């Protein structure tokens, strides 16, 4: 085994990038971490997440620990407000150009980890899905996260706490019309988590979750879904809502209760759209720039030649983490971050030493 002294480039300072950087450094390899925003933390930070699924950890606190673990690591060089603008070369000798506030920098790195994450599905001004842009009291999961974090769960229209809140699942996911034929994986758990938090903050509120089927992976079943139903009296109703109509100053949601085989028309104060995941703009941009394959939805194609490696991209030496490759929860993100770190360090060590 030999060292060539090169660093691993990690693109993205969210949970996946941070964990990858932390692990690479822990393995004794230097890291260059590039983050477009002015600070680390990624989407959970940018969108003011209140609590993390599934241990109800305070998001700020948990991210703070993670960030501290990276910033305190001397082997990690952090470049915020920076972007990778060009990349050439191959494993063991990637020459990348990085635009930093101080100017363009050229670096040679041995391997690259892409942790550019996802963005929330946008219900769309043009499509006016569920009138998100028309009705102030129709919000998304991320809007609700911010309200929960501020302990200010209110109807945006009047600032009053809602008496009745309805979650609509699968907004922007599992939909051929929209083009997102995949399940976003986390929304069922997050809606259930938010429903619990709403009941904790507004014990008298009635919370409904309208769903096609509840996809509760692993422990989310007993840690989120069951407590929400059994302890927090959240009403789960099988049957997705078709439309939302204004009714006085409230909202009428219409759909079919498929279990009962009967139409339903329920008046509520606040509707939360459980919007799914899409590849972030950074993910799409980096994929193009790095010349790695994307799938039809724009996510980075993972799997490698074996099809079994969840962090391998189409280009040797470039690895992908978490939601840049597929809808992913934090478990997936951390698991792939650690794996990508190990693969990157291994690739670095096996690559030929640079000619110069």
């Amino acid at each position: 085994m030999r060292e060539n002294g090169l660093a691993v480039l990690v693109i993205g300072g969210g949970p996946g990038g941070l964990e990858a950087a932390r692990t690479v450094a822990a393995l004794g390899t230097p890291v260059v971490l590039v983050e477009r925003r002015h600070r680390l933390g990624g989407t959970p930070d940018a969108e003011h997440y209140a609590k993390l699924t599934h241990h109800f950890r305070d998001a700020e606190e948990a991210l703070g620990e993670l960030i501290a673990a990276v910033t305190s690591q001397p082997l990690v060089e952090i470049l915020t407000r920076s972007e990778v603008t060009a990349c050439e070369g191959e494993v063991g000798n990637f020459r990348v150009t990085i635009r930093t506030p101080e100017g363009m920098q050229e670096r040679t790195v041995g391997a690259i980890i892409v942790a550019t994450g996802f963005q929330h599905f946008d219900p769309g001004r043009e499509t006016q899905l569920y009138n998100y842009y028309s009705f102030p009291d129709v919000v998304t999961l991320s809007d609700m996260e911010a309200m929960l974090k501020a302990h200010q769960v209110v109807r945006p229209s009047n600032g009053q706490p809602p008496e009745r809140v309805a979650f609509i699942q699968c907004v922007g996911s599992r939909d051929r019309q929209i083009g997102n034929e995949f399940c976003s994986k986390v929304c069922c758990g997050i809606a259930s988590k938010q429903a619990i938090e709403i009941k904790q903050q507004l014990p008298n509120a009635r919370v409904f979750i309208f769903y096609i089927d509840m996809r509760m992976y692993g422990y989310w079943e007993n840690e989120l879904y069951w407590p929400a139903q059994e302890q927090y009296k959240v009403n789960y109703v099988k049957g997705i809502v078709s439309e939302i109509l204004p009714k006085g100053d409230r909202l009428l949601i219409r759909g079919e209760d498929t279990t009962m085989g009967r139409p339903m028309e329920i008046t509520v104060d606040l509707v939360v759209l459980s919007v799914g995941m899409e590849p972030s703009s950074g993910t799409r941009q980096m994929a193009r720039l790095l010349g790695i394959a994307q799938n039809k939805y724009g996510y980075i194609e993972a799997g490698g030649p074996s099809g079994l490696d969840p962090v391998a991209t189409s280009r040797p030496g470039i690895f992908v983490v978490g939601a840049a490759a597929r809808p992913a929860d934090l478990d997936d993100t951390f698991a792939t971050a650690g794996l990508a770190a190990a693969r990157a360090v291994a690739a670095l060590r096996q690559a030929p030493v640079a000619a110069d």
Partner: protein
Amino acid sequence: MDPSLKKVAEVWERETAIVEGMDISGPWNRMFGQRVIWDYSPDLIEEIAQLPGAESFAWCYQCGKCVPVCPVDVVGDYGPRKLYRRAQTGINLLDSPDLWLCTTCANCLRVCPKLVDMVQIMPAAREHAMLTGRAIPAELQEALENTAIYGNPLGQPARKREAWVKDAGVPVPILHQIQRPVEWLWWVECYPSYHPRGIDASIALARIFNALGLDFAILGREEKCAGDSQRLAGERGLFEMLAEENIRTLAKYEFRHIVVTDPHALNAFRKHYPKLGGQYDVWHYTTLLARELPKLQPLLTKSLPYRVTFHDPCYLGRHNGEYDAPRQLIQALPGVEFVEMLRCRENSYCCGGGGGGMWLDSFAAGHQRRRLSEERVLEAVSTGADTLVVCCPYEVSRFEDAAKSTGVEGRLRVRDIAELLAEAMGLIGEDAA
């Protein structure tokens, strides 16, 4: 006559009828109007779930596993998960006929991933309905009142409880007369003491016990209903009263084990009397006789040319785990050909008599396409059997009635295992039934 009924040509029609949200009122053309669900609320679910024992009502997540195995849903529109959903849409279980349709057969609990336990939920909900002054079906009310007054649901005098003994043709010692310790205290229970077909089985069993030289005695007039079905029908207080009296009575006598005719009594003694201070070693008679097979087998001398099938009583099988003893006894009968029904052992169908169903027959029939007992005898006939063998005293009369009402009376006879054994032992004739 129900005032909401009016006569239209040859049928009676209800003035207004809303069934499961469907308004089926209207003239004879029966146009349906469908009701929109306007609200969901956890309140009615919570009203049930806050009752001690009924917590699991709120756990249902609508997987639907319970519905296909629910014997009531097979003949109607029921099923535990539906109760949860109806409550969520505003139908109060406490005011709904659904409250009285469950037979506590426990088949739903057997398959439920979330352990929603109707065997505990139903008694709690029924008791709550009674305590909150809701009307209960008249048939059930009469059975409960009879039990409170007479110690049996039939409303028969206590003194007559031992009257069958004089027709037994063999000694049936009665403890208050013999005043000596016995090995086996035979708990006869109500239907085997009073109902003519129950008495047939009791006489058969008394003769078998005698032929085996069993040291046994009965309580006779001092015995009161063990009370398990009354408890399940919602009358916990009545059950406790009966149990306390029975425990006091049993304390007066020396015996080593109890043998019961009735699986419901078995269930009460095993699971509920201990909580009230009554600890006994209790056996169902089929378990005892199966143990005695080495002695019994040589006595089974007469060949019985029957093709038989067997109905597992819910409270012997699913509730107390005894599936084999009755089958061992049947298979020991010379000449008998044994066939199983499709639904047998753990997923056995229910006769409809448990959980108070014995005293809700007309009420239940009014909410079902056919009785559970009728469904079962048709299944029995479909096996080609000519004899339906039972070992729970609720079943003989229920299945015989069902055979009549389904028109298979001449093709299917209902016999207690004890009757078949006694017949093979030459202790009773074929027509003793």
